[in-house]
């Protein structure tokens, strides 16, 4: 009897928690399909009386949101590629190659994690302005070049590569670049996927830096454009919900497809400190 109660309690609590958690997202989708003005009623409707894609049409046709979808995709793809290029090589070197001050430099990098990145925003803005990079795609990408967490993730993973393998390759006369490309990278594939998923999602969801550095609407990313739109269209709930769905959909799809890699990155990355 007692076991039965426990079973019911645990599962009811879980189901309730999951329902509460999913509800806002479900409502977002539902409201995005409502006719304009429909959501502002009492009692508030849960489902559209007749679902319509009109809001999506308005967003793309009248507000030209295609442009921002494109911007976001471009920026996140570049951020992913840059993150891979910079962090894979550095993480591997920190794990497997010997050079002067390796441990000391790495400790310094970890120590820098306590400094919130927002401190750099104002000087960085001024620097980029001097370089003519404000309001450009390279300007938004600057923070994604290399990251301490990224280097850390790769380093942790790369440490499991047996030294004998690298030595054997060196014996065969392979250069370091060739070893990295032909021997190391294939072994790093899982962490590459993790890193790519993390970089794509984080850069897609990033808000403050794009808000600061992309001043022109034509250059904005989806989250920033959504913020701007929602200030102009406070009353158009259904339209904003359509915008919200478009904004979250890509990250959610990637997450569902590559969840395993994402979780591994999360667990490995959080053990820092």
């Amino acid at each position, binding site marked *: 009897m007692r076991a039965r109660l426990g079973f019911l309690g645990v599962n009811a609590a879980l189901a309730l928690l999951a329902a509460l958690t999913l509800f806002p997202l479900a409502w977002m989708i539902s409201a995005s399909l409502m006719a304009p003005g429909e959501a502002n009623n009492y009692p508030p409707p849960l489902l559209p009386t007749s679902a319509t894609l009109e809001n999506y049409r308005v967003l793309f046709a009248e507000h030209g949101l295609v442009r921002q979808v494109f911007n976001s995709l471009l920026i996140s793809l570049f951020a992913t590629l840059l993150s891979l290029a910079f962090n894979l090589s550095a993480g591997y070197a920190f794990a497997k190659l010997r050079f002067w001050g390796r441990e000391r430099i790495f400790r310094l990098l970890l120590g820098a994690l306590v400094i919130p990145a927002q401190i750099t925003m104002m000087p960085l803005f001024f620097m980029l302005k001097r370089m003519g990079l404000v309001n450009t795609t390279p300007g938004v990408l600057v923070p994604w070049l290399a990251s301490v967490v990224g280097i850390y993730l790769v380093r942790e993973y790369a440490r499991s590569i047996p030294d004998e393998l690298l030595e054997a390759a060196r014996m065969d006369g392979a250069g370091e670049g060739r070893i990295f490309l032909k021997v190391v990278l294939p072994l790093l594939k899982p962490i590459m996927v993790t890193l790519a998923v993390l970089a794509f999602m984080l850069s897609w969801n990033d808000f403050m830096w794009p808000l600061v550095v992309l001043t022109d609407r034509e250059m904005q990313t989806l989250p920033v454009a959504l913020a701007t739109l929602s200030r*102009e269209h406070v009353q158009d709930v259904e339209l904003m919900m359509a915008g919200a769905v478009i904004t979250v959909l890509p990250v959610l799809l990637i997450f569902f497809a590559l969840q395993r890699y994402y979780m591994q990155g999360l667990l490995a990355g959080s053990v820092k400190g």
Partner: protein
Amino acid sequence: MGREGEVASELLGAFERENPGLRVRVEQLPFTAAHEKLLTAYAGDATPDIAQMGNTWLPEFVALDAVVPLDDRLRASAQVDLADFDPGIVATNVIEGRQYGVPWYVDTRVLFYRRDLLAQAGFDAPPRDWDEWLRMQVAVKQRVGPDRYAVLLPLNEYEQLVALWLQQGEPLLRDGNRFGNFRSAGFAHALEFYLSMFERHLAPPVTNNDVANVWNEFARGYFSFFITGPWQIGELKRRLPPELQSSWMTAPLPGPHGPGASSAGGCSLAIFRRSTRMDAAWKLVEFLSRPAVQQEFYRLSGNLPARRSAWAAPALAHDPYARAFRDQLDRVRPIPQVPEWERIATELRLVMEMVVRGDIPKARVAQEMDARADLILEKRRWMLERRAHR
């Protein structure tokens, strides 16, 4: 900006047809963020060729050397004649003797009111001075009960209080705009009147965000008076139900003793220094200054033309709602022509919100505001002094 942006795209079709080589890209900005966004654009080297700019913002962009003077172009132009504009408005575009903007539309704040609710309270004409206005508000409030109010003074806007202060005929900043002038008799007078409307529960202590839909609430009689600009004429015509269309009207802003002044606002067109297409930008200024185009703009957006000859259009000349504005435009005063004003006014808004919510006592407002204004103006004083020594 706001609706103007959406409407401007419609106007520009004609411009593009006349000038086949030119394409105009309009960037709309929400009005509340427009000033911020233009400054950001300046800081981020992303200024457009031409912008519609609040008259109050122009000094800032001149100080930053972000916009170019238009005197030479104006002299050479066959199309734009500044004599055809309201002198009070033209003056807001002159900084240190040079003309930086061409007024596009004018904006001042007048009283919008519910005729029917006022009549039910026993008044058949709008108020002319503060005392009368207050009496009407009290009468209205008595009729509508505790859940509705007489007047809307949104806590996230400072324009209403500033307009009341301008009516006092005092400068808002003193000593050549070097210091705040909040410890003046005029500000005390305006503040007292403004706050009394909250103290007597004639005005709800809310922001526009809380009201959500001003038109619905005006229709519901949540308030009977509000102080706002000309774009609301079009909005109210479009959004109020037909049975209420004869129930609202506009009136000049009541002053302390008879019809009072209001702020000289509006937007001007300015050309940015970074523009690489200044000639084309000027062509657009000329196009938008045409009386016919200004009339069309009025028809589309409800914004009042800056150009006087545009007012001859029947749609405007016979519009009863526009009359109060025409009348008010003869009694407008400019707000201080310094870049820091925007920030000082924002501080004023924040302090007022705190006073109304009871966070700071009203007796401290003048001192507090002067302290904040003086701090904000410190850099300006230093720069002026340095220039004087050179």
